[in-house]
């Protein structure tokens, strides 16, 4: 029972990341009609925003280490600590959540620039060409990051207070030994919040209404005198921001390296396809569903019956869905049906 509950949490957690990436992917596809293979790279970029922010905060001065008296020893002390003392250390400790201040503007900017500079010119081209050019762009982003940050994963810790585990077993009246990392719980809550915000934005605001209308019939909206292109540029920026936030928050779970985006890209494409191209609820549902399936498949009991199933379950499900339900779980009629 405990094991199952734990796997469920694990799955929801992973599913949260999948859902966030897939949400942006399908939003871009539904509105702009562009297949964005660089979306994984945007996720990676978000994670590196967190890394950069942390590095910025810990810019240090070499000072004499007074605790060692035998010889002249020096240690690095961050400027923040020198200037603000205790408060400075606290700020450094909270670098990751604070890096949201950097992530949102940077990702928004990257998204807008990418749409205006590159994607815009590919509205009318074939899907194959869209895939290829964004794939090339993903390589470029990835290599730029590698040039500045190196090829090794960079550990990016969460604040001290949430680096331990939460006694969820005790909360829910299950066994006391059932614990779960705080940060993963936060990630799950965070992803649910962001997803809710995106949906609220699309459902409750005038801007969202226009976007939804544009997803239905782009030409009609344009004929009503609305500048659809402008709106869609913003949608792309929004999608990039969501992917970036997903990456930023994922940094403590998986130390970012330059090719983490590629691994997530394939998975999130599978998620989008399973959910149904262009369907937002589909993407979210499929993200959580596949996350849970994957974590259950990696249980030892199941692996002993079907060895290797944890490695391929997602792809297997995707193949089955694509063959039996060509539109995906919640795909709308007429969207990408060849």
């Amino acid at each position, binding site marked *: 029972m405990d094991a199952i509950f734990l796997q469920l949490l694990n799955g929801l957690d992973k599913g949260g990341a999948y859902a966030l990436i897939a949400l942006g992917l399908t939003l871009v596809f539904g509105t702009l009609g562009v297949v964005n293979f660089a979306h994984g790279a945007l996720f990676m970029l978000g994670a590196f925003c967190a890394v950069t922010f942390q590095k910025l905060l810990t810019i240090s001065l070499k000072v004499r280490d007074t605790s060692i008296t035998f010889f002249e020893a020096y240690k690095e002390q961050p400027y923040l600590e020198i200037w603000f003392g205790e408060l400075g250390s606290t700020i450094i400790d909270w670098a990751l959540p604070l890096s949201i201040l950097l992530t949102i503007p940077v990702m928004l900017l990257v998204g807008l620039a990418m749409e205006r500079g590159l994607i815009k*010119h590919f509205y009318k081209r074939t*899907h194959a060409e869209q895939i*290829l050019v964004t794939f*090339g762009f993903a390589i470029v982003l990835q290599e730029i990051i590698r040039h500045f940050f190196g090829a090794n994963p960079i550990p990016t810790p969460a604040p001290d207070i949430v680096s331990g585990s939460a006694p969820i077993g005790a909360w829910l009246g299950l066994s006391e030994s059932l614990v779960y990392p705080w940060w993963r719980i936060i990630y799950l809550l965070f992803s649910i919040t962001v997803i809710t915000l995106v949906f609220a934005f699309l459902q409750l605001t005038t801007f969202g209404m226009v976007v939804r209308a544009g997803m239905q019939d782009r030409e009609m909206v344009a004929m009503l005198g609305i500048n659809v292109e402008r709106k869609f540029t913003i949608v792309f920026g929004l999608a990039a921001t969501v992917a970036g936030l997903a990456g930023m928050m994922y940094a403590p779970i998986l130390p970012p390296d330059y090719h983490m985006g590629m691994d997530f890209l394939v998975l999130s494409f*599978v998620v989008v396809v399973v959910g149904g191209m262009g369907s937002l609820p589909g993407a979210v549902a499929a993200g959580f569903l596949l996350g849970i399936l994957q974590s259950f498949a990696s249980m030892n009991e199941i692996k002993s019956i079907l060895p*290797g199933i944890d490695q*391929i379950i997602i792809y297997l499900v995707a*193949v089955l869905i*694509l*063959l039996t339900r060509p539109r995906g779980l919640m795909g709308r009629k007429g969207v990408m049906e060849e």
Partner: protein
Amino acid sequence: MNFSETGNNLKLMLIFSAVILTMPLWLAPIGAGYPDLLQKFVIFGIFAIGYNILFGLTGYLSFGHAVFLGIGSYTAVWSFKLLTMNVLPAILLATIMAGVAAALIGYISLRRSGIYFSILTLAFAQMSYNLAYSVLTPITNGETGLQLSQQDPRIIDRAFSTAGEGLPSTELFGISMSGYSGFYFCAVVLIIAFFFSLKIFRSPFGMKLQAIKSNQTRMKYTGFNTRPYLMTAFIISGMYAGLAGALMAVTDPLAGAERMQWTASGEVVLMTILGGVGTLFGPLLGVGIIKYFENIFSAINEETLHHLFSFLPGFLESLMVTITAPFVGEGWHLTLGVLFMVIVIFLPGGIMEGMDRIKKRFRHQGDDNDPPGEGVDQ
């Protein structure tokens, strides 16, 4: 097929063979005349030619072709381990195995088209890659990669001779497949492979594949069932990839799962696009350019750059070095990515299209009646 067409083929094949076989001579002046690189040109050439049969003719963008490359390599190494060090059974078995795998994957993937096809092949590629690293470790030897060892049975070889000292090398009836002999063997295979692709391009079958690319719906209304044609194209291109994988194992008898990664599939797409999708020579051109510059660029370091820009005044020199440094050495992939984007954005037809445009421009300049540049947009 009429006489002139075959004559054309013959002439083309003769020139092509001559060009390929004399590669060590004419590539030597630009520093690419050594066997290691030449083998790479030829092997990836086969891979790209095969890929072009699928993507170039039918327009189906597969992102999982490296799987067949990997399967070819594994099969070839197993053939070296179990049967004989002779390369012929190895490449034969590898091609067949890749064909079988292509039939399985193709049977499912080809039920869908467009982006769904790309994603299905991608899913299969990831599945195979993950499996090769986990459950299939007894077959693939996981992260270490599959290698030859002293304890291998090598049944056929043992029937004729006893095991020698050290690891045996791959051979073709006594000729060792390393260095130039390896290159010439691969070159002959490439020539044969090219001949087949030429035949396919110029056959009714090839025409039907092209018809699928331009308008599949119309093709279906005309009464053709397109699936068998697509299947055949997919299997053939899979077999080409398997053959290329086997040749990789021939020149260097080990196989690793990283050959199956989807970024490896991306590489062949890139080569094909760079040269020119759907053209006969384009993919080969793309392979040559990418592999050559990969070789040159990855060898450059900052010192060479300083040397290169030493004619400039001091601050300009360091500026140029700072600008170019990210693009060379380890950063070769950055150059590749930028090149890829530039090609897709400005020259979707690849270098072959670029050459056509230049040719047209020259023709127009000779002809006064037409304003220059008129034909360029067409």
